[in-house]
């Protein structure tokens, strides 16, 4: 037995956030009674996500001063002493005013809209290869250090549960939601659609495609 949901207005509106919310289940279908209740302890251990308004931040604090040592020991090997990135590992700082450049440098400082994302991501996924090893205070401290590298907080500024959400990121206003379709619908041309065609680029000339010798076949 499947239950039909009220459909959104139209497929073309899919890019718009329309929330059915409360009316989603017109009639609640019967419950199967499968699964077991999740205890508060179980939820607390797995529910580690942070939101821009600070929801989810645990009690704790840290400063760039405290984060510098942790960063040097656990982060600098890939991200560089000053967040400049090593090899192809991500650059964490700088790139200010580069978003309109030919080669934008998208970093925490130049691109990321919210400090909460820094905290959340470090806590859940860093250091790469040893995720979820940083404590709560360590995460506040490393977050503060990354923000300090981007001149967003002072070296000795404590960030904690109460003030992280107030930190203003340089590019907080840089994101928007698409309104309506990107391209108008039209009936495409089928005959004599162009006068001529000219080849302006060839991948073969660039020659960055793996050849047989360089290809990594995955077993």
């Amino acid at each position, binding site marked *: 037995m499947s239950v039909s949901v009220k459909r959104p207005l139209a497929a073309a509106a899919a890019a718009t956030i329309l929330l059915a919310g409360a009316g989603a289940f017109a009639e609640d279908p019967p419950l199967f009674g499968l699964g077991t209740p999740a205890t508060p302890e179980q939820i607390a251990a*797995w*529910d580690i996500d942070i939101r821009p308004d600070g929801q989810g931040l645990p009690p704790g604090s840290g400063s760039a001063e405290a984060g510098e040592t942790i960063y040097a020991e656990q982060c600098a090997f890939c991200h560089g002493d000053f967040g400049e990135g090593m090899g192809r*590992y991500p650059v964490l700082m700088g790139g200010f005013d580069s978003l309109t450049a030919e080669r934008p440098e*998208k970093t925490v400082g130049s691109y990321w809209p919210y400090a909460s994302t820094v905290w959340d991501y470090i806590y859940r996924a860093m250091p790469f290869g040893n995720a979820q090893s940083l404590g709560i205070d360590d995460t506040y401290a490393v977050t503060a250090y990354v923000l300090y590298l981007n001149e967003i907080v002072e070296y000795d500024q404590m960030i904690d549960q109460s003030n992280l959400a107030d930190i203003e990121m340089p590019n907080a206003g840089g994101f928007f939601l698409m309104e309506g379709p990107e391209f108008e619908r039209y009936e495409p041309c089928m005959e004599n659609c162009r006068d001529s065609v000219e080849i302006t680029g060839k991948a073969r000339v660039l020659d960055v*495609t793996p*050849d047989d010798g360089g290809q990594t076949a995955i077993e």
Partner: protein
Amino acid sequence: MTDKTTRGRAPAPDRSGSRGSGLHGAGPAQTESPPLSPDRRRFLTGTAAAGIAAGTGSLFAGGGKALASNPDNLPPNIPDWSRYLGVGVDANPYGSPVEFESHVVRRSVEWLTATSESSVNFTPIHEMDGFVTPNGLCFERHHGGMAVIPPEDYRLMINGLVDRPLIFTYQDLLRFPPESRFHFLECAANSGMEWRGAQLNGVQYTHGMIHCVYYTGVPLKTLLNEAGVKTSGKWILVEGADSSGMTRSIPLEKALDDCLVAYSQNGERLRAEQGYPIRLVVPGWEGNMWVKWLRRIEIGDQPWYHREETSKYTDLLPDGTARKFTWTMDAKSVITSPSPEKPMLSEGPQVIKGLAWSGHGRIQRVDVSTDGGINWQPARLHEPVLSKSLTFFSLPWSWSGKDALLQSRAIDETGYVQPQMAALQEARGVNSIYHNNSVQTWLVNANGAVDNVRLG
């Protein structure tokens, strides 16, 4: 020419064991194995050429060249396989493709990423007929390597704005009424290396971050109903159990519409690299949201703005602003043969083959051009044409032996027309990385070689 007297004919195997009874396990076991053909012997000692086709030099050889065949196997000669026994039914409990197809593999591009554990490989779509991707060839994209989770240790938690926070075991999930559907999964970055110009000379690399399989799983709606979403709930956060802890925000409306919590692909349980034992299926939407190794679903009243929907999967425009929440994969198509990996072997009758898909629904039409978009003709869409699934198309073509510029253009059921690159660049510049669904051009050279080119 053969001389019967010099053909080394092996002695006939002893057939004293009653013939045919072995199929039902009743006959006596053969005490003596039949002699092996020379080919079989070579194969068993591991010296078989690892994929004859792969040994023909570069995939991107400067033109078509058919493999030379061995005259011993051709009429009027009798090849070995017509004379000697092959392996029995107990040789391959889980079969693999024949050795001659060993070039049909996922491939990666080393310079794309810092490390292979947070990287991508590519589906060999130029080797696919039809629209179903074999499980072992489905491209992989991990952010913390491939997690391997014993099913008995798997748990899915639902928490947040619900009446009943719940934890499901794998066995729990198998007890809900399932749904099965074909869907394509396309990485938002598919064709992302092609924004500035023709860069990678192979359709596997330009369009291979895609697969399409037959999923079986529980509608997400069913599980959310089990937990009881509160009226304040408007968004869900989906989270993976792997070391990247992948998270994405999804509006509740989509979650209740057609998302699946899937445990099977093409009739068997998910491959580990595809999220075993459980992954999310988000039909028509960018692959990043199809969280693998799904461990938790939280209901909230606003989006989370996590790393994969701020730093990544946002599309930078020339004015420095970026589109966010560009979830749907727009209509797209590509000719998979001819392509750089599939050069032309001869003049005359050919078949142009390809794939088309749209995150908005069904493909309505695919037009093909052989003159760089001056003239078009509709291709044949092979049934079934399904919603938010790959669609296989083909078109007979007689190649004159002269240079030709091949393009395909998809139109979906909403009337959306796949754009040319010029139109897409005008709308988005060249730095948005994601959502490049532009028309692809292949140059068929007079020598049969095929090149990825960009038209002015």
